[in-house]
């Protein structure tokens, strides 16, 4: 009986999960071995041709590089900021709740709204950034329109959006640290920096690793802002893998190639998931 009940209870969720997660994942993989069908020429098996095209596609390599720089630009800085925020908010600070709220607020905003707000800072001439630059006598600059600055603009905005989210994980971890440690250090006369470097930071390592993996996964999924700010431009300078998949599928209508790109994305997410899983296992082991 328990078999029947168990499966009966699971069935509604299982049908939807299979339909929108497992089936499409397998179908994507299959699709990547076929050509994109057209009215005159139906889709046919092409083996690894799509992957060969991918290897020869300069835009693919560029979005991959961009993803790498985007991750490298956003993750270390937002983690460092998150840790700093958590230490501050965890300490004796007047109006602590208000400060914590200020740090966390960007997390609850949709990326689209964030992009709308930040677009103004980056607009040439009337934007805030140009106004500040003008005060120092610098000329107008097209921040989002120039390949040299566009990535930096997106990185700054993403750090603002994400640091407060990572802060709450550090905050929770800090609150589990025994206060005796700090007292002992004070009696021994250890400086705060020394205490942080030798005690707090090592004890927070599991949290740091955890946040690191989550942030990496996020950096591959976060593309909403591109729709408002740059559309991947100028000349793909700010294009990211998931946005490129969207473009290939829904602007260029090359479904097979989009599937091939999706396989690469799934592969990467898979690697991160394995790393994440191992971290969780290890953490359980420590306890």
């Amino acid at each position, binding site marked *: 009986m328990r078999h029947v*009940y168990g499966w009966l209870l699971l069935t509604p969720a299982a049908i939807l999960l299979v339909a929108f997660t497992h089936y499409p994942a397998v179908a994507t993989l299959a699709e990547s071995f076929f050509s994109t069908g057209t009215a005159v020429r139906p889709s046919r098996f092409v083996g690894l041709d799509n992957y060969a095209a991918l290897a020869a596609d300069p835009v693919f390599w560029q979005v991959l590089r961009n993803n790498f720089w985007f991750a490298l630009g956003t993750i270390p800085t937002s983690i460092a900021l998150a840790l700093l925020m958590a230490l501050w908010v965890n300490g*004796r600070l007047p109006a602590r709740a208000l400060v914590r709220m200020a740090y966390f607020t960007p997390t609850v905003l949709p990326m*689209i*709204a964030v992009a709308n707000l930040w677009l103004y800072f980056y607009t040439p001439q009337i934007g805030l950034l140009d106004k500040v630059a003008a005060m120092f006598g610098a000329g107008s600059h097209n921040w989002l329109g120039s390949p040299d600055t566009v990535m930096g603009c997106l990185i700054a905005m993403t750090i603002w959006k994400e640091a407060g*989210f990572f802060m709450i994980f550090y905050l929770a971890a800090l609150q589990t640290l025994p206060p005796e440690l700090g007292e002992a250090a004070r009696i021994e006369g250890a400086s705060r920096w020394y205490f942080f470097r030798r005690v707090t930071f090592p004890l927070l390592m599991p949290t740091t690793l955890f946040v690191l993996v989550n942030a990496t996964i996020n950096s591959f999924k976060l593309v909403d802002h591109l729709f408002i700010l740059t559309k991947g431009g100028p000349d793909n300078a700010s294009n990211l893998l998931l946005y490129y998949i*969207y473009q290939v599928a829904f602007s260029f209508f090359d479904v097979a190639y*989009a599937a091939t790109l999706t396989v690469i*994305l*799934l592969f990467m997410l898979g690697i991160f998931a394995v790393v994440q899983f191992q971290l969780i296992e290890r953490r359980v082991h420590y306890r």
Partner: protein
Amino acid sequence: MTHAERVAAWLLAILWLSPLLYAFWAAFHPPAFATTFDPLAPLTLANFEKAWGYAPFPRHFLNTVILVTMVLAAQLVLCTLAAFAFARFDFAGRDVAFALVLLQLMIMPEVLIVENYRTMARLGLVDTILGIGLPYMASAFGIFLLRQTFKTIPRELEEAARVEGCSWLGVLWRVYVPLARPTYLAYALVSVSYHWNNFLWPLIVTNSVNTRPLTVGLAIFGAPESGVDWSVISAGTLMAVAPLLVAFLLFQRQFMQSFMQAGIK
């Protein structure tokens, strides 16, 4: 904490709030004052009025509310049933099934946009609110979270209810669901925030005003080529985020705790 550090913490807080504060400034003042910070500038609600008129905001609001409610209601039912099965029934293939469920934590529906769009087209659900919500209704995160909670509930409670003549579903409804209330609340907050803010999949699967949620409406409205001026965009953006922002300001602690649970999984 030194004095300098306190000041730094405060300055960072102000810096962090400033984009939002600036949007408030622009939204409540005439466009002429959008970029000049004159404390005596006249206040106005004209920007909100204009934004409300430029884009079909009432319709987008309605769509988002329908979407969020529908997804949450379906998630609560489906995830409760599945989580109960995983927590309390030792059925054949349970561990494999659970591993397959967890796979969704990694492969979110928005990564599989191409195939999912095709599925929606086959089902005739393109450009419907149901089409936006359907891929999210069976949520691995919800199943996982509820399973964890259900497992902590002592078996004795369940056995007592069984002795009293409760059916399996009765036990679930009268024992498990009430005891898991905090988990439901945390999950609901995360789900509502997620779907209120979600963009890529709704953008792909909708193509008319009647189905587009707020985020998609906002993207069209705020795009530079729409030619709407800055003050009006700020007003529109604030309107779209207001419900969630107000809820957050009222229930900060609850929000932060829920988001944390969602992150840790």
